[in-house]
């Protein structure tokens, strides 16, 4: 569709120059010369470094990088740790936490975001005030979010204490200090931070739906619930996909929040793979294992992002 309109955007200015002098050839190459540094930087510092990390993961690097390939020992150890449940290995804890956190974070953000967007779309007076309130946490750093929630959830001074003072003395909420529940506090803080943004994405999607479709359905006697279930939500499918990609990639990259909110939790019980990587690489002097875990994180992202980017860039060849 859009191919026709945009494919003739080709501006190689060869027509003005019958004989290519050095100067004019330079002129022709100028756009590429301008783009080259950025591209070179990306190739070296992104792709080159990724290869470097992969290489390191096959060595026996400890405190300092070693460049002698010693095989897949780091991966074998990670694999073995995956099944070390009693007592749980740090790697087992990290990937289990990733599962819990990723699943709940994505699900709750999507559900809450959609719910709030639908509510806000009911001709609400004061929408202009509410929307920024829902969205501002996205402007904060994970560190500030972590500090704020750490304080809010502190059993001695925060929510628990407040409810005790109000007379609900049996109320007990010490998740942030409990090794089995600490990851759920990361979910709470994470949802608090990102759900407003997902709301904004859904709201933009809702505003883009043709009002005529809605009217027609209403005339046909559809109830509000049916209208949303059968018509609106299916129309929002692309938004679901984008939101999922954003959330999945935020979830896998989450690192700061765990550090600031829980300092890793009791005995490292709040670790995500990102924390595992950092600790093993920089603190426990197990560079090869750290690199291997980074490679696994990268592969997870690749599995999610590459098909998405491929379809995005291919659908609209301009």
């Amino acid at each position, binding site marked *: 569709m859009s191919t026709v309109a945009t494919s003739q*955007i080709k*501006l190689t200015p060869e027509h003005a120059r019958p004989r290519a002098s050095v100067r004019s050839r330079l002129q022709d190459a100028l756009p590429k010369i301008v783009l080259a540094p950025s591209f070179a930087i990306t190739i070296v510092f992104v792709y080159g470094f990724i290869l470097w990390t992969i290489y390191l993961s096959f060595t026996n690097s400890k405190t300092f990088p070693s460049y002698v390939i010693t095989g897949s020992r780091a991966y074998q150890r990670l694999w073995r740790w995956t099944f070390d449940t009693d007592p749980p290995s740090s790697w087992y804890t990290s990937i289990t936490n990733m599962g819990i956190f990723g699943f709940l974070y994505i699900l709750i953000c999507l559900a809450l975001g959609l719910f709030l967007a639908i*509510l806000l*779309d009911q001709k609400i007076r004061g929408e202009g005030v509410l929307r*920024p309130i829902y969205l501002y946490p996205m402007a*904060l750093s994970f560190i500030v979010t972590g500090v704020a929630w*750490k304080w809010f959830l502190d059993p001695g*001074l925060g929510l628990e204490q407040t409810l005790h003072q109000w007379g609900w003395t049996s109320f007990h909420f010490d998740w942030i200090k409990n090794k089995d529940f600490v990851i759920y506090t990361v979910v709470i803080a994470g949802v608090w931070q990102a759900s407003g943004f997902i709301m904004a994405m859904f709201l933009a999607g809702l505003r883009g739906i043709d009002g005529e479709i809605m009217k027609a359905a209403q005339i046909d006697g559809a109830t509000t619930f049916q209208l949303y279930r059968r018509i609106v939500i299916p129309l929002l499918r692309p938004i679901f996909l984008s939101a999922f990609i954003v959330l999945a990639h935020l979830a896998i990259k989450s*690192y700061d929040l765990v550090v*600031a909110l829980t300092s890793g939790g009791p005995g490292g019980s709040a670790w995500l793979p990102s924390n595992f990587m950092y600790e093993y690489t920089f603190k426990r002097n197990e560079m090869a294992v750290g690199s291997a875990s980074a490679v696994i994180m990268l592969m997870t992202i690749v599995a999610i992002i590459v098909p998405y980017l491929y379809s995005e860039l291919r659908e609209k060849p301009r």
Partner: protein
Amino acid sequence: MSAVTTPARQASGGVSVKTLNRIVIYGLLALFALFYLMPLFVMLVTSFKTMDEIQNGNMLALPKAPTFDPWLKAWGETCVGLTCAGIKGYFWNSIKMVVPAVLISTMLGALNGYVLTKWRFRGATLVFGLMLFACFIPFQSVLLPMATILGSLGRFGVTLQNSVGTSFGLGNPTVNLVFVHVVYGIGFTTLFFRNYYEAFPTELVKAAQVDGASFFQIFRRIMLPNSMPIFVVTVIYQFTNIWNDFLFASAYAGTGDAMPMTVALNNVVNTSTGVVEYNVNMAAAMIAALPTLLVYVLAGRYFVRGLMAGAVKG
């Protein structure tokens, strides 16, 4: 799509059902507004309380005798690690890092977007795709090689310092962070400008070319004057991201005087020596949050546009 109101089912009860619906909707919206505001509110009131009031009072209560002392202490006296000179130095570290990193990455993004849309060449989409994917990688996968390279450059800087008298910024943690943020930021800035310039009329560029305008003349005279909105979006996006970064900051400037604000804040809060001064911690957190919050309040519209552009391409 605008409002979808429940059709009144019964002639008699219709109005009240509708009113009830409205009450429920507004109630829910207000409840969620409280949920989002609560942590900020608690942080703010705590930062104006005395320690005495914090230990004996209610977290949600307004300060009985508001005091500005925690803020002053956080800014000028609190201990970050072993240095007790407040967080002001680290606040400036962040500024010194953010401003050049944002400007350089935005300018490069604008040029890249211009080339990728108006001077297309074979393989342009592949080049863009490779740059775009770089936005999404977990930075753990480049963290260690970058640390190695920055370490070597630092040692080279020391050699230069000894022989020539200047290290040219090599080994300076702030310069390192600017470099790192430019490298891993150009993917996003290029994306923003590419999508914006895609919609920019190519005829104008063509016409200028026929008139003999050069590559840079077209960029300066035609593209730049029409790029204000996307510049605002990109600058805000980059500013927020770089200011809020913690991973790179802790890996490459995690100790010493050059650490940025986020690392310093984390150190203040997790310092285990002496009595924990919650009010000072909260004031420090507020100071760390203020620049981005301010940007959000002043230019929220552009902030949201940036987030959207980063999420939904096209």
